[in-house]
C-alpha cells in the first residue's frame, strides 16, 4: 500500500464511454493482477476504485500504469476530462488480487487426473478459464498476460452488451489459446452471454464482472476466483464500508478482497 502521485500520459476513449488512462509514476505496488488503485478526483470527496489493467516497470524511470474506466457518474466523467500532464493522487497496491499459482496447481492436478480417468477430465494443458463481463475485462487482461508468462494455457470469454462496448479483445488475443467474445445482441463475436460459452468441465476459473454474471459463472464451475465490487469509503481497511459475508466470516472487500475464492462465497 502506497500513496503516490502520477502524471497523465494519455486519456483516450477506446469504446462507448470507456477510457484508457495511461499514467507515469511509482507503480511498484501494482504487480498483482486483480488488485486496484483508489483515485482522488478533484471535486469529489471519496476516492474512486479502479482495477489495475496493465503495468510496465522501468528501471530508473517512472513505471507506466494503465487503467480502464467507464463513465458512469460524476467522478468518472470528471476523470474523462483529464488531459495529459495532469497530476493524480493514487493509493496503490490495494486488495488481494488473483492468485495465478492456483491455475498452475490446477493444471498439474488436471494432468494427473487425466492420466487416471482419461475421459471427462479437462484438456490436460488447460490451466485457466478467464470470464469477464464489461469492465471486468480490465483486470483479466493483466492476469492473462501473467498466466501466459508462466506457461499456463488460458482460454478467455468476454461478454458485452454490444459491439460499441467491446474492449481489450485485440490486446488479449496474443496471451490466450482461445478467445470468445459474446455480445447480447450478436453485433460482435457470438450472440449470447458468457455462460453460453463455458465448456462442460471448465478448468480453474477467474471471473470479474457484474454480480448476476458472477453468480451464473459460479454455478457453471467447481473451482476458481471471483472479483467483487462494493462501494468503498477508504479502500484500505479502515472504515468497514465494504464488508461482505463469506464462509470464513465477515471480510473487507478492499483488503481481504476484491477477489474471493469460490468456496468462500455466500450469495
Amino acid at each position: 500500500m502506497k500513496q503516490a502521485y502520477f502524471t497523465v500520459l494519455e486519456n483516450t476513449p477506446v469504446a462507448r464511454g470507456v477510457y484508457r488512462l495511461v499514467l507515469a509514476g511509482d507503480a511498484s505496488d501494482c504487480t498483482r493482477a486483480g488488485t486496484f488503485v483508489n483515485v482522488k478526483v478533484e471535486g469529489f470527496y471519496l476516492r474512486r476504485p479502479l482495477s489495475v489493467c496493465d503495468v510496465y516497470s522501468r528501471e530508473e524511470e517512472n513505471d507506466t500504469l494503465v487503467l480502464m474506466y467507464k463513465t458512469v457518474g460524476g467522478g468518472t466523467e470528471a476523470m474523462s476530462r483529464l488531459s495529459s500532464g495532469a497530476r493524480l493522487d493514487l493509493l496503490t497496491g490495494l486488495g488481494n488480487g488473483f492468485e495465478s499459482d492456483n491455475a498452475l496447481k490446477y493444471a498439474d492436478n488436471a494432468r494427473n487426473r487425466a492420466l487416471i480417468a482419461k475421459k471427462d477430465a479437462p484438456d490436460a494443458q488447460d490451466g485457466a478459464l478467464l470470464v469477464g463481463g464489461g469492465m471486468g475485462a480490465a483486470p483479466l487482461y493483466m492476469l492473462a498476460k501473467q498466466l501466459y508468462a508462466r506457461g499456463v494455457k488460458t482460454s478467455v470469454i468476454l461478454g458485452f452488451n454490444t459491439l460499441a462496448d467491446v474492449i481489450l479483445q485485440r490486446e488479449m488475443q496474443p496471451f490466450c489459446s482461445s478467445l470468445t467474445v459474446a455480445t447480447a445482441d450478436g453485433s460482435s463475436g457470438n450472440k449470447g452471454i458468457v455462460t453460453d460459452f463455458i465448456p462442460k468441465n471448465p478448468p480453474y476459473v477467474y471471473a470479474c464482472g457484474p454480480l448476476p454474471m458472477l453468480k451464473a459463472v459460479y454455478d457453471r464451475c467447481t473451482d476458481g476466483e471471483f472479483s467483487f465490487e462494493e462501494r468503498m469509503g477508504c479502500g484500505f481497511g479502515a472504515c468497514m464500508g465494504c464488508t461482505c459475508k463469506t464462509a470464513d466470516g465477515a471480510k473487507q472487500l478492499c483488503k481481504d478482497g476484491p477477489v474471493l475464492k469460490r468456496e468462500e462465497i455466500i450469495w
Partner: protein
Amino acid sequence: MVDLGVTLCGLQLKNPVIPASGTYGFGYGHAAFYSPEILGSIALKGTTEQPRFGNQTPRVAECPAGMLNSVGLQNPGVDAVINEELPRLKSVFSGKVIANVCGFSVEEYVRVARRFDEAEQVGIIELNLSCPNVECGGMSMGATPSGVARVTGQVKKTVKKPVIVKLTPNTLDITALALAAQDAGADGVAMINTVLGMRIDIKKQRPVLANARGGLSGRAIFPIAVRAVYDVYEKVNIPIVGMGGISCTEDAVEMMLAGATAVQVGAENLRDPFACKKIIDGLPPLLASLGVQSITSLIGAAHS
C-alpha cells in the same frame, strides 16, 4: 519550540490529535502509511459485547464535501478486541488508547466498559451514545438528557478509568446532553458524532444507502461541530474532545479555540490516509506563526 502536549482527563498526550472512532479501524491499518506513534491517542472502532456484522451494503455514499455512512457498528465483539486487536495494535502504538463502547441496553454498556476498564492499553472509555445507524442503543439512548444520564451514571459506578461521553448533534439542544453527562459524573464529552442524512440515486429512484439513512461526516459538518463545541464549552467545566469535519491543521486550531482540549479526525483519514500526520506536522509552524508557545493556551480562547 512550541509545546504541543495536552492533558485529557488525566492522560498526558504528546499532541491533541486523535483519529476518530470508526475511521482508523483498530489502529494498525494506517501503519502501512506512517507510524501511529506520532498520534496523541487513537479512538478504536465502536465495540459491542457480541460480534456484529453491521448493516447491508452500500454503507457509504458520496456527498458534497463529505460522506454518509451506515456501517452499523460492525465489530468483532469485545472479547476479540481485547484478545486479538489490542495486542496487534500494541506492536505499532505504545500509548494509551480510547475504547469506544456501544451497546443495545444500559447493561451492555456497563459490561463492555467493565472489560475495557481492565485492559491495560485503554486510557479512556468513550461511551458512544450517538451512533445514528442502529435501531436501538446508540443515538436512541443518547438523544435525550435522561438517556445520557442513565447510561453515564451506571457506567461511572462500575469503572475506574475516565469516561468520556460522545454526543449526537441530532437533538434539540446538545448543551443539555453535555450537562446531563457532566451531572452523571462524566469526566469529559466528545462531540460531535455524525449528522443524520440521506442521498437518493435519481436513476434508481431509491436511497443510495441500503439502510436509507446514514450519518454525515467530513468537511460539510465542520461549522456545525464548531458551534456545538463553542456552546457546550460555555455550559460545562469538563474537557471537550472536539470533532466533526476537521481536515487540516487550521481546523484543529479553530476547534480548540471553540473549546476543545483535544481533537479527533474522522472521515478525512479515509480519503487521505496521511490526514492526522499532516495535521500534526502542521501544528508547530502554524502555532509559531500565530505567536502561540503552548497549545493549551488555545483551548476556549475564542470565548470572551
